[in-house]
């Protein structure tokens, strides 16, 4: 037990350090060649009427090789928020684990959840702590989104490698296919969209990104692997089933086939 003078408070990271565990791979690793590690790619989030939609493809790559077809880059952070990562997969997974634990730890110790903005701020501190690793090529670039119970609206943030935290008004996409996905969102976005339209738009953005970016995996109908798509509303996190997503991707393919058969090159 800790005395009042060295009590770590409600912070899980501080607690880990008090008991002698360093949660981040800091240390002097300058020089040498960074080992090749899997990278996670396109993730996005957008607002709709009543919350946010988050989505992430399933592909992880090492150089030009597909390392994993089933990676889940989008996870619930707690009941009312989600976190999606692009960048170096190993540190990113560790960061998400610490982040989820941090939110739960605070909630249990204090008897209430952190505010949505507080959660974004916590994630920003974790990204900042990863800066030395980012300098060596192991950067983590998350998106954080959730339902703000105080303001009764969906909100979303993205982060740069230094922990810089930017709240976005309507949508954000990041990762190697983020440019394409962001453009699709930008063209298709309307304020206060119905949820089903927002889910379809998120799927379309991933579909188009996968069409252009080799490091982004689209829907893999052959293996039955579909992107992770979830909505977060006042009722909390809800992941969409593959059965719900499959017809949307099938529709994109049909549309594309029709155009190609119509003579477009």
């Amino acid at each position, binding site marked *: 037990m800790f005395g009042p003078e060295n009590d770590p408070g409600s912070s899980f990271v501080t607690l880990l350090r008090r008991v002698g565990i360093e949660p981040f791979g800091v240390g002097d690793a300058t020089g040498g060649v960074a080992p090749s590690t899997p990278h996670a790619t396109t993730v996005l989030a957008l607002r709709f009427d009543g919350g946010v939609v988050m989505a992430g493809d399933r592909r992880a790559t090492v150089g030009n090789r597909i390392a994993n077809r089933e990676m889940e880059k989008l996870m619930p952070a707690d009941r009312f928020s989600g976190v999606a990562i692009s960048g170096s997969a190993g540190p990113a997974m560790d960061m998400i684990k610490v982040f989820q634990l941090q939110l739960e730890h605070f909630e249990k110790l204090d*008897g209430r959840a952190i505010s949505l903005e507080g959660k974004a701020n916590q994630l920003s501190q974790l990204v900042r702590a990863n800066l030395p690793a980012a300098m060596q090529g192991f950067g983590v670039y998350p998106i954080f989104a959730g339902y703000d119970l105080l303001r009764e609206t969906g909100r979303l943030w993205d982060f740069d490698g230094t922990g810089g935290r930017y709240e976005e008004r309507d949508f954000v996409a990041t990762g190697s296919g983020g440019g394409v996905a962001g453009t699709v969102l930008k063209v298709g976005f309307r304020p206060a969209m119905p949820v089903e339209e927002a889910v379809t738009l998120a799927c379309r953005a991933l579909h188009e990104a996968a069409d252009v970016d080799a490091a982004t995996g689209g829907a893999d109908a052959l293996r039955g692997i579909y992107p992770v798509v979830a909505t977060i509303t006042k009722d909390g996190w809800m992941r969409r089933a593959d059965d719900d997503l499959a017809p949307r991707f099938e529709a994109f393919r049909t549309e594309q086939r029709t155009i190609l058969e119509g003579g477009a090159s």
Partner: protein
Amino acid sequence: MNQPFYVSPEQVMKDRADYARKGIARGRALVAVQYVDGIVLVAENTSNTLRKISEIYDRIGFAGVGKYNEFDSLRRFGVRNADVKGYQYSRDDVEARSLANEYAQILGQTFTHEMKPLEVEILVAEVGFTQESDQLFHIMYDGTLVDEQGMSVLGGDAEAISARLSETWRKEDDLRAAVRGCVAALCGPDRTLGAGDTEVAVLSRSNGRRCFRRLDDAEVSGFLV
């Protein structure tokens, strides 16, 4: 130089035990019972913010009676201990038995080595995947650890409450019957308790990963009508 008076160890221990027991008896009691879907914990508590019952980990709950600041610091210890263990090993490696042992050590150490014993009694409950593997560990102010079967009563007037509860309690009860039985046992025949006077939480097998859930006043009053 004054020589200190000789006091026999028996007397020291007895005085400390009396002191702790008196402190605990001043507070209101708490019960926990198995029901068909898990474990329900019911405390007499008029405060809506200072909790006696809380979540430690996915399947583990904590309850304390006696001096609030003392059992609350034990609760915080439990949350920290469980979260660090789950981080270092796996979520499956966090269990009530080892935590109960640590609590017994802390309370036992304090009882024998400190001037003042902790004026608390605590309960560590773990909901199993089946009713047979549910666990209730009751830890006394002196570190005595009891593995209780089916039901547990903490705090003042425990014997009378326990007698009342054992007449009505059945482990096949649903949540409504279990809550009604616990509240009736807590208040006895001469008075009544409303939802506002109680604090109720469950460790439920059907609540997903985090089994702990608080019942709000509306839900509890629904059970009590």
